[in-house]
């Protein structure tokens, strides 16, 4: 391959993302090998902002678990957890991680260090049950950062209102309590300037993340929200608050802008612009995507990019003059937004359809995740009464290949695209 400017820039996000990801796991392995510990956190409200200001290595058990599925060994881990009494009906992420822990951190990407602390939000209730497992296993402190969500669909409390301020004060108090706990766990004194530095990097990442997503409003789309998007998400979560994360996303914006300018789309010849609602089908990750791209279907946006980034899509900018208060506002708004894009996703999907010129909506509820899946059928029903965009509803799982039936999926997807094609014919040329 000759190294034209185009070759250098196009695909850089995926290449660098994969490399950063490998480095990140290598670092974790090293920590584990030297018996070091890490903070265990979750994607929806990782609190990386605080933890990084204490230089704590962070482990995202959700990402570890999904990696076992992508690498097609999840069943081994799931079986082991089920042998220990865990039900086939609970979240597969929890079970895969349980088995990773039982195996002393053994994982296809390297070795996972044990936790020194677990920090979680209430964005998913299963986070709490999950962290309780580590609490029992390792006798570590677990900290639930409780972030009250939107009380009624479409009516989040507004910044400055009494209700917002009540929630914010609660979040701020908890941030201060978490800082005290981190001081205890690490033996280090909290350094507010270091927090400022981390927040500055996070601001940069946030605004880039928002831009990257928005750039997909262009035709053709510049990235596939399902496949490329998952790589970007990995970096957005793992390296949030770091200079590397900020740099990566700055360059990603450059790449996407370059692609827009030069009319370069994804690998797919874009025929249909799709929104993905739910959690990806990791046991057949590439193949699942191909079932759509084979028909020229491209995933332009997804609720996953929103909630699995902890609401970073809002592009929230922290005020470095008043970091703790600003962090409380940012956390409240971003994590609340992540929750809204799961519980009230019809609002987001409706706006995506408009802003991203969407032809079809793909709902993928999964056995493992009631957080994301419980309301999908109902919200699909109500959205279909408001907007005329054909949708497809396929159930499977993001971990458990026993409930992923590719042949059946393919039949339904093929039929869906045939419907899209004849609809397009009926409505005249696109």
């Amino acid at each position, binding site marked *: 391959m000759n190294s034209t400017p185009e070759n250098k820039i196009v695909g850089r996000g995926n290449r660098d993302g994969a490399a950063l990801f490998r480095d990140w796991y290598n670092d974790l392995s090293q920590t584990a090998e030297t018996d070091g510990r890490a903070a265990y956190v979750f994607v929806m409200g990782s609190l990386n902002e605080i933890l990084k200001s204490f230089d704590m290595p962070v482990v995202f058990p959700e990402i570890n678990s999904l990696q076992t599925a992508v690498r097609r060994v999840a069943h081994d881990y799931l079986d082991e957890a089920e042998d220990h009494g865990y039900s086939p009906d609970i979240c597969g992420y929890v079970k895969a991680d349980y088995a990773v822990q039982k195996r002393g951190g053994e994982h296809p990407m390297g070795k996972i260090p044990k936790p020194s602390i677990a920090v979680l939000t209430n964005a998913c*209730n299963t986070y709490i049950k999950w962290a309780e497992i580590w609490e029992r296993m390792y006798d570590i402190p*677990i900290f639930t950062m409780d972030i009250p969500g939107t*009380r*009624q669909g479409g009516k989040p409390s507004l910044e400055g209102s009494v209700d917002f301020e009540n929630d914010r004060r*609660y979040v701020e108090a908890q941030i201060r309590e978490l800082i005290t706990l981190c001081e205890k766990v690490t033996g280090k004194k909290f350094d507010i300037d270091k927090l400022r530095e981390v927040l500055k990097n996070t601001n940069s990442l946030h605004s880039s993340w928002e831009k990257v997503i928005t750039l997909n409003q262009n035709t053709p789309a510049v990235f596939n929200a399902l496949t490329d998007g998952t790589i970007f998400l990995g970096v957005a979560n793992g390296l949030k608050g770091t200079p590397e994360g900020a740099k990566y996303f700055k360059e990603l914006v450059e790449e996407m802008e370059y692609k827009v300018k030069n009319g370069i789309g994804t690998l797919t010849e874009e025929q249909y612009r799709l929104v993905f609602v739910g959690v990806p089908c990791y046991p057949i990750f590439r193949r699942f995507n191909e079932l759509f791209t084979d028909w020229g279907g491209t995933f332009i946006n997804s609720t996953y990019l929103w909630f699995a980034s902890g609401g970073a899509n809002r592009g929230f900018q922290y005020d470095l003059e008043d970091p703790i208060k600003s962090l409380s506002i940012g956390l409240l708004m971003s994590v609340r937004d992540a929750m809204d894009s799961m519980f*009230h996703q019809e609002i987001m999907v409706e706006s995506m359809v408009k802003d991203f010129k969407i032809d079809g909506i793909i709902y993928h509820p999964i056995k493992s995740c009631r957080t994301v899946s*419980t309301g999908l*059928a109902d919200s699909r029903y109500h959205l279909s009464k408001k907007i005329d965009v054909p949708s497809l*509803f396929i159930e499977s799982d993001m971990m458990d290949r026993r409930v992923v039936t590719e042949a059946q999926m393919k039949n339904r997807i093929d039929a869906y695209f045939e419907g899209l094609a004849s609809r397009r014919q009926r409505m005249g040329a696109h």
Partner: protein
Amino acid sequence: MSFETFPEWRGKELDEILYECRELLEDTEYPTINRWRQNGGKVAGHFQVYFPEEIAHAAGMLPVKMGGAPVEPNSADSHFGSYLCSIIKTSLEVALNEKVKLDLFISHPICDAARNLAAIFGRNFDYPCQILYLPQNPNSSHSLQYLTDEYGRLKRLVEEITGNKITDEKLRASIEVYNQNRQYLREIYDIKRDTPWLLTADEGYALLAIGGLIPREEHNEVLKTVIPLIKSRVRKKEDRIRLVFEGGFCEQPPLDLIRMLGQTCYLVDDDFLIGMRWILSDVSLEGEPLRNLAHSYLEDSSYSPVQHDNRKPKEEMLLKRIEACDAGAVIIAAAKMCEPGLEEQVAYTHELDRKGIPYFVTEFEENMNSFDHLEMQVDTFLENLLF
């Protein structure tokens, strides 16, 4: 009391009263709620586990526990995918088919499914459908203030819906009614623990559960009447295993299953509808009522798999429960597809293994109607303990 939603028990013998309670519980036409509405009253439906009913009560609403129902979710099914517990579906079912008409629906962040329920109700009904964000970090020093404020928000909402101002006086009066109710329920559980032969498992359950369907004043009347009657029953103590049932904090097992269990053992404690017994002693009548309610929720309360509190490791709480009622064995149950319940089962059983306490693990569904297999398994389990 002039208007009553549940007059059927009046003037009857104990066995007949208990029969009427069971009938009410299994009546999927919800006569008491409908009578309340026909009388011009408003209804606040709240999902499991705990809801500060006093706040709705103080504005003259009827708080109703949306605790599922023994019905098929024919209308609700199309609103859900697979892999869900039943109570989520049947709670929507009774609202969609208008058996239960509400003016307000409240859910809580107890689990991933329930958090979606307020959104689902909100898309299907015009009345306010909200989440009451009970704190998930009860260990934060700010959680008391936060919860007091959150109750204040609920109070404003209820005032808006009813048009009735909720004064501190009214709140205190409601708290008194509920304190009384909690006191009676404690007495029922004392009977179950100390003299279980006087009250069968299903009778005890029915007496508790009807409280979610009628005004608490009426519930208090029923309990006040039956408690002395139960105590004066003449029944012989039998040599039975004393059992704890754990896993009824949200979806409820069918009444027949509870009856079946009570036929072979003494069910001396349980977590059925634990929200009704969440607060352990009287809520203070001094000072700010909302703060007092919040304080009791956080500081003087029971436990369940859906609340994390560093001070209440659940295995320890279960062991305390077993010890307090001197039980010889435990049923560790979970509703089918209930993520928190199923997860807790593992922690509970590992702990019981460590302590050498016999247990039986099972799953149930509120509308299951055949227990032959389960009955055989339970019998075998109990026989193994006895012989």
